[in-house]
């Protein structure tokens, strides 16, 4: 059910001491449909000039990528959804 899906959340990885509330998606390292491990780096975002690796919060299938490369977002937006295995 969609209720089981876990969000890959931008707010969870926001860098410390950066004031900016917006960021941009730089690189995705996995495509929709890929089985991912917990902690595996899924994508790279950039907030101000700081680059951040975003880990998978849970092991499972990367079922939906919401924000693609070059998409801009605000803190708290969801990057993608994982269906835990």
């Amino acid at each position, binding site marked *: 059910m969609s209720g089981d899906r876990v969000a890959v959340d931008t707010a969870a990885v926001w860098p410390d001491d950066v004031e900016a509330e917006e960021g941009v998606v730089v690189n995705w390292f996995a495509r929709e449909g890929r089985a991912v491990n917990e902690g595996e780096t899924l994508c790279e975002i950039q907030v101000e*000039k700081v680059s951040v690796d975003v880990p998978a919060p849970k092991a499972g299938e990367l079922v939906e990528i919401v924000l693609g490369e070059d998409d801009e977002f605000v803190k708290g937006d969801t990057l993608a959804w994982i269906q835990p295995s």
Partner: protein
Amino acid sequence: MPSTAVLQDMYEDMVTARYYEERLQEEYLEGKEPAFDISAGPIPGELHLAAGHEASGAGVCQHLRAEDTVTAPHRPHHIAIAKGVDLKKMTAEIFGKQTGLGKGKGGHMHLFDPEVNFACSGIIAQGCPPAVGAAMANKKRNTDNVAVAFLGEGAIDQGAFLESLNLASVQNLPVIFVVEDNDWAISMPKDRVTDVEDGSQRAAGHNLPGIRVDHDDAIDVYEAAEEAIGRARDGNGPTVVEVQVHRRMGHFMGDAEGYRPDEDVERHKARDSIERLAAVLETHGLTQDDLDEIRARSERRVEEAIDWAKEQPLPEPEEAYENVFTNDPSGVTESPPAASPPGGDE
């Protein structure tokens, strides 16, 4: 203590330089947020701003004439301003315009102004040997003009600097080396890469006098430069002057400075040489209104330069092929006389 007129002049150079860097930062970041794309916007590429370095350019250049040569590193704007480089053409060059100092070909790291004998370059310590050469020319021509090479504290580890000291010393040339020590070579603090705490000590190893100005203070710089430049003009050879400055805007625009402790950034900002000079000017009788007027004038000048630069046209693509050489590729030959046939007689 310099005269009030000199203090005012230095203050104006410093305020102009600071405002210039602040405005360039704004112009540079346009089109580059939130995704920082280095090649986007009106000023693409790298930009190394000198906010925090103002005392060095102002204090040294007070003693220089248009005929004196200055070479500067990739963080040059404060030096160019103090040296009297054409601010409009310099700005146009930074914006990549056809009427810039280099017709758009050099950009901010490669500013050349022959009117005031100023040049800067992008390779560390690269300006040192040419400054030695300018001093050589001055000596050959029997003038009392001098040359000044500005460099960062990271550059004192580079071969070109060390060789320049030796050559200048052995030939007793009228050249001064001004090391701008802002503690950081990109992400390297000085104590992790340089074998001496005080860069002016390098002078002793080359039989040269060295002066260290510790305090991020334009007047101290002025006085040290007076001694060094005076020595060179009198025919008594080179000096190494190391000047403490601070870096307020990162190594280049886009540098998140993640490697730099916050206390270090704060400590540096507390050393503001502009505020210090303002306080001295007030003891010399200037009022806040006087200082505001200098500031307003400086800001106007910077805005005019930026406005002018923005109105200028970009170069035409075909211009990319021009100015490789000064003369024709074939040189300056006229028709040479016919060679005699081999064997001599007919």
